[in-house]
């Protein structure tokens, strides 16, 4: 079976959803939609045995073969892991949304259409082997995420959050496209597999570092790394199933996927290791630190997601070190990254759903109004407890295992000696440990402020009670996964994680089962990580107890200096700046634009003439000068002077006629009888036309032009005049080929049977020119007639008749 087509299954199903929503009113649309991710999940489970043997599966659908753009579904360990997450958590989220989204109040058709589009996009991102289709699906995730965040489009905040996430992720997406373009230039292919095969040569290419930076920009914006995380907390305006699905389990991990997928290409570079590990750790610390500042449940979870994504990112960076050393602990880092990715998806998905349940049952998500819900909502509390403690990194939950591995990897970093890690390496475990302390604190903060303490029922908009079991089903499944994975980590490792590790580092392993990692919960008292964890629990508890004492510290940071303000200022500033810029040079006065045009024209042409050393005067090619032409030239220049300096329009018009007649005289002098004839007639008619309109035309008026304006005008005008003279002299002196007129002279009698060469050219050799010149005259006549006769609006008519 061509399983590449399965990528499109959700989006094709999305076409049916509006009809289902409209005609099957008795049943919640979600139940029907649920079939899609569930069927996909079960189908993709069948790939596990193949992956365990280190195999991969490929399926192709040609799209634009001539450009090498093909939908290639390439499933290896990494793709399969993500695919299972997308379809598995997708099923649970749809199940949850059936109970969360009200059948009567909400527009379910749109909701599930967006969700299914997103599912296709995400499957496409993780399965694409072709960078162009990867980019296509990547942008589709941005667009569907935009639609989902703005689902309640009547709310201001939803629209703001949707726009913000769109701006940031699309910016990153475009940067990533740049990286793909550079990669395809370097490797001459769009296929990721083929690029990976060429990785050793690519390192030496000149664009390598630029491609690396652009790719990381794409990954960091999508995965909400510092400083691009600002869109994620605002995206919490989306319905909770969306937050749980997109903004904790799947879409924000697309950047992680990208980093993992391209590690075989870029991982050998020290810039990559520094950036991925460093930014990851910074994000980890930043997110965990600011999570405690938040008062909204979903905002706490959003910052927690930011922080955990940073953790996974830093582990991927540390994992890339295994290209440079045989130290087994760095191979462990990649394993830990993927392990934590799964763990995070399970516990964070569950926690979001619990936050949604609390919102649904109490009417608020404000942690200051909540408290003491433990006895009212025992099942929700249990799930939240499991999720929070796993997030904090406590046994017996899966977060503990990955947190231990994370601490081990970070501690190992200080012993790594290449790339200046010997100097700065000590920072990594310290930052990681402090961040873990804050993680522990905000986990307790989330759990205990909501469920423990005094009941504040009178403050709540609704009378709280336990959620319906259907709504709790999905979070309970996720919570049980949290527990199960803790007890059978090595089975999960064997089935899913080791094939994924092999996909991230294909050159290091021949077979997934040679990934030499055995996860164990207990390392004995000699283990560093154990003591670090004990320290985290001790200090974290202390922090939690003293929260009221040090929480005011957050107020030290002025609101003006936050990253959100920075984003807002950037958007406002570019809006206003661009507006100001265009108003600056587009002042609406035609003279200004003409000044730009003339000044540019003359300066550019004169400059080119002299820079290129193209100015030549060749006097020998010039014709002899005659007395008549000198006299005529003097008359012409005088007439021009009268036109320019006259204050009387009659004099100006007559002088213009004088210019025309002396031009006609030039035509006589230079042996052009037809021209002279036409010029005389036309000039006469023109002057007559001017005089006809004379009565209706305004008097000549300088309209308050100052001397300064006149001087500027004169300088520009003079430069144009000089430019024309110089170009005329220069081009006349450097003719490259003789005129083709000899042919006309030779054949005018024999071919065309005429004697007047000019007339024969006009009607015979080049008759088309004449045809359209007649058309121009006809159109001009119609236009003149139209403008004089037509009166569009009544108001104008009255004006005319005055």
């Amino acid at each position, binding site marked *: 079976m061509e399983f590449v087509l399965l990528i499109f299954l959700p989006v094709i199903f999305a076409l049916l959803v509006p009809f289902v929503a409209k005609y099957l009113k008795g049943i919640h649309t979600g139940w029907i939609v649920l079939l899609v991710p569930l069927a996909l999940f079960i189908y993709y489970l069948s790939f596990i045995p193949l992956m365990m043997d280190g195999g991969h599966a490929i399926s192709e659908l040609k799209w634009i073969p001539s450009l090498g753009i093909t939908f290639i579904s390439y499933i290896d360990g990494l793709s399969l892991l993500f695919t299972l997450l997308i379809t598995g958590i997708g099923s649970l989220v749809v199940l949850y949304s059936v109970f969360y989204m009200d059948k009567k109040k909400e527009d379910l058709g749109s909701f599930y259409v967006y969700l299914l589009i997103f599912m296709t996009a995400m499957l496409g991102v993780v399965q694409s082997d072709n960078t162009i289709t990867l980019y296509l699906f990547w942008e589709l995730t941005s667009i569907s995420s935009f639609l989902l965040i703005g689902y309640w489009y009547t709310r201001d905040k939803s629209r703001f959050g949707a726009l913000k996430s769109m701006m940031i992720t699309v910016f990153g997406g475009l940067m990533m496209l740049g990286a793909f373009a550079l990669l395809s230039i370097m490797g001459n292919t769009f296929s990721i597999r083929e690029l990976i095969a060429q990785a050793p040569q690519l390192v030496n290419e000149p664009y390598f570092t630029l491609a690396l930076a652009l790719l990381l920009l794409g990954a960091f914006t999508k995965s909400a790394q510092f400083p691009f995380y600002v869109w994620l907390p605002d995206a919490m305006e989306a319905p909770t199933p969306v937050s749980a699905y997109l903004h904790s389990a799947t879409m924000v991990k697309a950047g992680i996927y990208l980093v993992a997928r391209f590690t075989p290409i870029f991982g050998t570079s020290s810039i990559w290791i520094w950036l991925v590990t460093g930014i990851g750790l910074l994000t980890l610390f930043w997110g965990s630190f600011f999570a405690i500042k938040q008062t909204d449940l979903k905002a706490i979870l959003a910052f927690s997601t930011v922080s955990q994504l940073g953790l996974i990112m830093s582990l991927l960076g540390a994992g890339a070190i295994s290209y440079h050393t045989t130290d087994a602990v760095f191979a462990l880092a990649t394993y830990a990254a993927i392990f934590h990715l799964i763990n995070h998806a399970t516990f964070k998905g569950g926690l979001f759903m619990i936050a949604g349940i609390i919102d649904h049952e109490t009417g608020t998500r404000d942690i200051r109004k909540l408290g003491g819900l433990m006895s009212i909502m025992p099942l929700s509390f249990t799930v939240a407890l499991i999720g929070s403690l796993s997030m904090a990194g406590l046994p017996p939950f899966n977060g503990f295992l990955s947190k231990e591995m994370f601490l081990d990897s970070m501690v190992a970093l200080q012993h790594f000696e290449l790339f200046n890690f010997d100097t700065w390496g000590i920072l990594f475990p310290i930052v990681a440990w402090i961040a873990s302390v804050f993680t522990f604190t905000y986990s307790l903060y989330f759990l205990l402020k909501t469920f423990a303490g005094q009941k504040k029922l009178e403050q709540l908009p609704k009378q709280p009670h336990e959620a319906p079991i259907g709504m709790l089903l999905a979070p309970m499944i996720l919570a049980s996964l949290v527990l199960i994975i803790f007890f059978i980590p090595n089975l999960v490792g064997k089935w899913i994680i080791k094939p994924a590790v092999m996909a991230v580092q294909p050159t290091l392993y021949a077979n997934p089962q040679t990934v030499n990692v055995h996860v164990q919960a207990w390392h004995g008292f000699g283990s560093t990580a154990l003591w670090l964890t004990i320290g985290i629990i001790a200090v974290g508890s202390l922090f939690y107890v003293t929260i009221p004492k040090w929480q005011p510290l957050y107020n030290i940071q002025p609101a003006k200096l936050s990253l959100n303000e920075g984003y807002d200022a950037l958007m406002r500033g570019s809006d206003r700046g661009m507006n100001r810029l265009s108003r600056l040079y587009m002042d*609406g006065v035609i003279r200004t634009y003409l000044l730009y045009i003339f000044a540019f024209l003359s300066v550019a042409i004169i400059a080119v003439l002299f820079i290129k050393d193209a100015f030549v005067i060749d006097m020998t090619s010039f014709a002899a000068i005659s007395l008549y*032409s000198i006299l005529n030239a003097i008359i012409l220049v005088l007439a021009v002077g009268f*036109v320019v300096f006259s204050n009387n329009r009659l004099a100006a018009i007559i002088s*213009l006629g004088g210019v025309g007649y002396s031009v006609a005289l030039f035509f006589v002098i230079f042996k052009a009888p037809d021209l002279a004839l036409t*010029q005389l007639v036309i000039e006469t008619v023109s002057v007559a036309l001017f005089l006809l309109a004379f009565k209706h035309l305004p008097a000549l008026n300088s309209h308050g032009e100052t001397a300064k304006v006149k001087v500027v005008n004169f300088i520009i005008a003079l430069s144009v005049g000089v430019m024309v003279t110089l170009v005329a002299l220069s081009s006349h002196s450097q003719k490259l080929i003789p005129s083709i007129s000899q042919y006309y002279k030779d054949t005018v009698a024999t071919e065309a049977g005429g004697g007047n060469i000019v007339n024969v050219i006009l009607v015979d050799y080049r008759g088309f020119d004449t045809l359209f010149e007649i058309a121009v*005259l006809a159109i001009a006549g119609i236009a003149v007639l139209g403008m004089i006769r037509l009166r569009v609006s009544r108001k104008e008519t009255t004006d005319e008749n005055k």
Partner: protein
Amino acid sequence: MELLLAIVIGVLFTAAVYLILSRSLLKIILGTGLLSHGAHLLILTMGGLGGTAPPVLADGVTDFADPLPQALILTAIVISFGVTAVMLVMAYRMYAVHKTDNMNELRGNDEHD
């Protein structure tokens, strides 16, 4: 001869651009008139001012003026006449509607941008 004509053409262009940059609509139209004269003379000059006879076949004449630029100018004269006529009428209409020929007052307002 070409040197003289080139300077005359330069003067024509200078005067034309100076008028076009002014604020009075009528001056702008006068300027375009001068500009077309300059352009026509430029074409003629660039074709070469040599040639002792007009380009009409006659016995014993071999040194004709170049006919091709003349044909081009003839076309250009007619077209510029058409354009001038349209501009003139447009100016008349505009003056009738807006009661001003000051180009600085004739700018769009904010409703249009």
